[in-house]
């Protein structure tokens, strides 16, 4: 019996070791995330105005963030540690540290269709979820930022020819993530394209590989990460849209908006923003962190 246990234990250890090695090969945020938060600034007591949303969050001791658990590089739950990792997730932690003094965050998997309602009824304090600032949305929520700019690009199966620009998608079946800015963008640039949507990024990639569509339109960062892991797909254009991501806040909460914008300015100036980028998106995109977008630079922000 003892021998059996030993064999099983060794086998399990072996498996665990394999898991470790595999994880290292998967591009993702580095483990330095904790240090970034350690160095991230905390607000002066005088910035937490009495009666404000910030004070409410501070006295609760936890920042409630509307976010995702399945967006690689941005906000993805690591099944091994349970931690949510990525650019958006770490930004949320840094904001929590700024307000509370500790990176205490609860992520509500808000799903893009309910973000506005969750902010309006106070279920979440902020939304960090690749939330593209649009004027329509700005009528329902307040946007701090933009805190990051991204763009859509096109991936195809390796060896597909004839698609080099968005207009080439006309008359073709195109895959897009459900509830992503890719849908309106395709409608605008290639009105004759037939759009097929799936709930998550892995499903879209699988559909592309199974010829459910000839092209997949998605955020460049996600596609770079996917193309690095999987040589069956290739990216065929440079980003052809500009999507400014904002931090969603309750509509009309100007105090909070100013507070969050001030925080953004601080972490951009002291290098925290750049470090968060390097630990997440920077693990698949070559080179230095980009210039952060200018706060308030887009309509709706």
């Amino acid at each position, binding site marked *: 019996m003892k021998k059996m246990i030993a064999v099983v234990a060794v086998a399990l250890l072996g498996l665990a070791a394999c898991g470790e090695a595999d994880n290292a090969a998967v591009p993702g945020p580095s483990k330095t995330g904790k240090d970034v938060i350690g160095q991230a600034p905390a607000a002066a007591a005088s910035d937490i105005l009495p009666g404000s949303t910030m004070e409410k969050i501070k006295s609760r001791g936890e920042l409630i963030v509307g976010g995702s658990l399945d967006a690689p590089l941005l906000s993805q739950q690591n099944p091994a540690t349970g931690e949510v990792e990525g650019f958006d997730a770490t930004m949320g932690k840094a904001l929590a540290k700024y307000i509370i003094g500790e990176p205490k965050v609860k992520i509500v998997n808000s799903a893009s269709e309910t973000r506005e309602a969750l902010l309006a009824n106070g279920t979440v304090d902020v939304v960090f979820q690749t939330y593209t600032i649009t004027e329509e949305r700005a*009528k329902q929520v307040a946007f701090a930022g933009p805190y990051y700019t991204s763009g859509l690009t096109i991936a195809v199966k390796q060896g597909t020819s004839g698609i080099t620009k968005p207009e080439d998608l006309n008359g073709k079946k195109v895959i897009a993530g459900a509830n992503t800015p890719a849908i309106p963008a395709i409608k605008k640039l290639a009105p004759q394209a037939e759009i097929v*949507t*799936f709930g998550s990024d892995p499903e879209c990639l699988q559909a592309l590989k199974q010829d459910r569509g000839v092209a997949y339109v998605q955020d460049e960062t996600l596609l770079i990460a996917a193309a690095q892991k999987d040589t069956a797909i290739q990216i065929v254009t440079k980003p052809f849209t500009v999507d400014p991501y904002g931090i969603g806040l309750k509509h009309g909460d100007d105090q909070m908006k100013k507070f969050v914008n001030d925080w953004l300015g601080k972490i951009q100036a002291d290098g925290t923003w750049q470090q968060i980028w390097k630990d997440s998106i920077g693990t698949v995109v070559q080179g230095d962190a980009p210039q952060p977008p200018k706060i308030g630079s887009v309509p709706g922000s």
Partner: protein
Amino acid sequence: MSVLLDHLPELWQGLVVTLQLTAASFLGAAVLGVIVTALRVSPVRVLRAIGTAYVETFQNLPLLVLLVLAFFGLPEIGVKAEPLTTAIVVVSVYEAAYVGEALRSGVNSVSKGQGEAARAIGLTFTQSLRHVILPQALRTVVQPLGNIAIALIMNTALAGAVSIVELTTAAKNVNLVEAQPIPIFVGAGIAYALLAALVGLVTGRLERRLVILR
């Protein structure tokens, strides 16, 4: 409210797909369900086991898992169909387990003497099922079948996961642009509620007309 009117064409198109999916799947589930019931009450032990295995399998798997599995898994072994076809087949196969169980409860409600009498006058198993047992069983389970139909309508919303733009997905798409979830989803919810109410009304009428007083 105006947001609903502005996007009426898209939402209407979604509703039409929901109706297509519901009608085709319910038909498929009814046909398959009768077969499942026949298996479960058959005198041959192997057939009964097959019927039981079918019901146990599909009642114990989430529909969403089946949909995603069929849509992404089957092409890996060379079986690839249009999304709508896949969804209709999967929803039919899934709901057939429930239809089968409802029908079986109806069969159990037909008194034993009926079956014995059918056999006594020389009917085969299939004949006695078709002419004696099932007609009575069906009349007893009009209401449960209506409930299954209502559940089926709601379940069609899951087909959005495999790229079908039914009512729920259409509502999500509209919300993506308009960012007004409350009016949009309340509107879609009312459409589902009306559909369910309609099914309830029809089955209520049918039940009163068909009921057998024992």
